[in-house]
């Protein structure tokens, strides 16, 4: 009896989304997956994942030497920092993170945030991610002004949460930016945030999902399995889950004591200069396999490892 060929295929597809516009010399397009990562057909795996390198609006207070030293003297100058991240370290995007707005980390104001935004826009040609401090009250007051300062640049603005989404969603709509929807390692809340934001008239096609990331040894497998389930739902036709995904690997990895302890603090753990970057790279490479589209990273050595990994699977740029 001749049997008809049955092809395993998915009915859904992850949205494609282009970051950048206006004065950007480059745009970056992510998403488009029609199958699981490395699930066979190269064309169906969608756009290659990209690396966004973190730039902080004010000098980092708690970075270990191995990380801070990699940047030389630029950590007090976000524009120079961004330029280095792109020109020397090859970041596909710059993620400008406004830690300094947080009441516990400097409590800086809108004037500062707008000035930094304008400087970074002027310094680099790649698309930008503009990410608030995580303090709802402060971000609601300042991020709309940051958004306004970047109008026309089609940046990725972050983040909106289940309890705080109206202000930034309205801002992103008005300024025609893209948005990051955040959930606390919770797939049900992720779906709900997407629904809430799209109920405000914000297109799902302009939204990126973010689960607070777990690093190696600190919940990475939990983040992995949530993101894997999100992606399988997307491919199964759930259009509320068919969104590109971003991970914050840099910040989370460098919180781990295994990454940041110096050789003298933990001699039994091996060379501190290699250990931290490897911790970050290992986390990124593992999470990429759950279908992540954008990874936020910090150490240039880790960035280099992850870029080589992406190139080996997707082909080089």
């Amino acid at each position, binding site marked *: 009896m*001749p049997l*008809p060929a*049955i092809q395993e295929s998915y009915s859904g597809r992850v949205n494609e989304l282009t970051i950048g516009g206006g004065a950007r010399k480059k745009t970056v397009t992510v998403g488009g997956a029609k199958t699981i990562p490395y699930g066979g057909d190269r064309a169906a795996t969608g756009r290659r994942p990209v690396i966004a390198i973190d730039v902080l609006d004010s000098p980092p207070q708690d970075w270990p030497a191995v990380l801070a030293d990699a940047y030389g003297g630029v950590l007090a100058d976000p524009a120079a920092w961004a330029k280095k991240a792109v020109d020397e370290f090859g970041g596909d995007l710059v993620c400008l993170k406004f830690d300094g707005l947080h009441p516990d980390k400097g409590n800086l104001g809108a004037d500062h945030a707008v000035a930094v935004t304008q400087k970074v826009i002027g310094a680099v040609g790649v698309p930008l991610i503009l990410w608030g401090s995580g303090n709802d009250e402060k971000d609601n007051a300042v991020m709309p002004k940051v958004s306004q300062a970047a109008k026309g640049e089609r940046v990725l603005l972050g983040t909106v949460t289940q309890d705080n989404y109206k202000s930034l969603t309205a801002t992103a709509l008005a300024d025609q930016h893209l948005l990051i929807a955040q959930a606390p390692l919770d*797939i049900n809340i992720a*779906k*709900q945030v997407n*629904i809430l934001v799209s109920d405000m008239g914000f297109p799902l096609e302009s939204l990126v999902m973010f689960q607070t990331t777990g690093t190696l040894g600190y919940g990475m497998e939990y983040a992995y399995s949530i993101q894997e*389930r999100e992606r399988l739902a997307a491919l199964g036709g*759930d259009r*509320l889950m068919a969104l590109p995904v971003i991970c914050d690997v840099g910040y989370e990895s460098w919180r781990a004591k295994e990454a940041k302890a110096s050789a003298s603090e933990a001699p039994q753990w091996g060379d501190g200069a290699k250990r931290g970057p490897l911790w970050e790279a290992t986390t990124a490479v593992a999470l990429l396999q759950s279908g992540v589209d954008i990874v936020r990273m910090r150490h240039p050595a880790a960035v280099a490892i992850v870029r080589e990994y992406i190139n080996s699977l997707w082909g080089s740029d």
Partner: protein
Amino acid sequence: MIAIGERINGMFTDVKDAIAAKDPAPIVSLAKRQAAAGAAYLDINVGTAAADQAGTIKWLVETAQAAVPTPLCLDSQKPDVIRAGLSACDTSRGVLLNSSPLNKKSDPDVLARYVEMANSAGGSLIALTMDREGVPQNIDRRVEIAAELLTRCMELGLAPDRLFIDPIILPVNVPGAQAQPTNILAAIDQIRLMSDPPPHITMGLSNLSQGTTERSLINRTFLAMAMSHGADSAIIDVLDEPLVDIVATVEMLMNKQIYSDSFLKAYRSTAGGQRPDK
């Protein structure tokens, strides 16, 4: 759940009147409302009143597909009527043919005709667990016919994921029919094991409650029971909101839809995503 909206059917008075008057407005309205309610396909059945069934199905197809992008489910026991419907149908959006028995006394090869039409349209087919002897009353014969349907369809080049098996629900208040709902559930269990991927399981749900009181309650309850046994499609009144709420809830409880606080709304916005031709 692949929900097939049942309302564009000449058995309903409003549709019958619209057909008689060639008035597109009620058809357009039903198409739009069912599409908005999450129908994956819209059933198109001319009923019995129209003299020119071929001309009528073409008119219904043209009217419905101009109103919404939802694919259609062409519903007739006469292959020529289906063929007429197909000639007017935009099959690029998918199509479902409804339905063929295994065989008929008057037409032993009826299944092959339907499969051929489904294949050339790139669509799917509903096949009934029914043969020249009629609708079997026991579990074993239902399962046996389903196996024959599946085998015959595969021989004719229709893959199991494009085959919908309808185990045929009879009204529960017909004498002797009260054992049938349980028999159908047992048959579904076995049919789902016949291939991987299994054929889809669908049913004309509203038939179960014909002539009873508490029609909606009977339909809603049995649909939840059937879904828990693996039915993944049904021809239903998608405008019955509590019925669709039950579908959404069962899918969520069966881990087919990711829970969110707005899961009822989320279900409606993603319905149709499981169609085999999507």
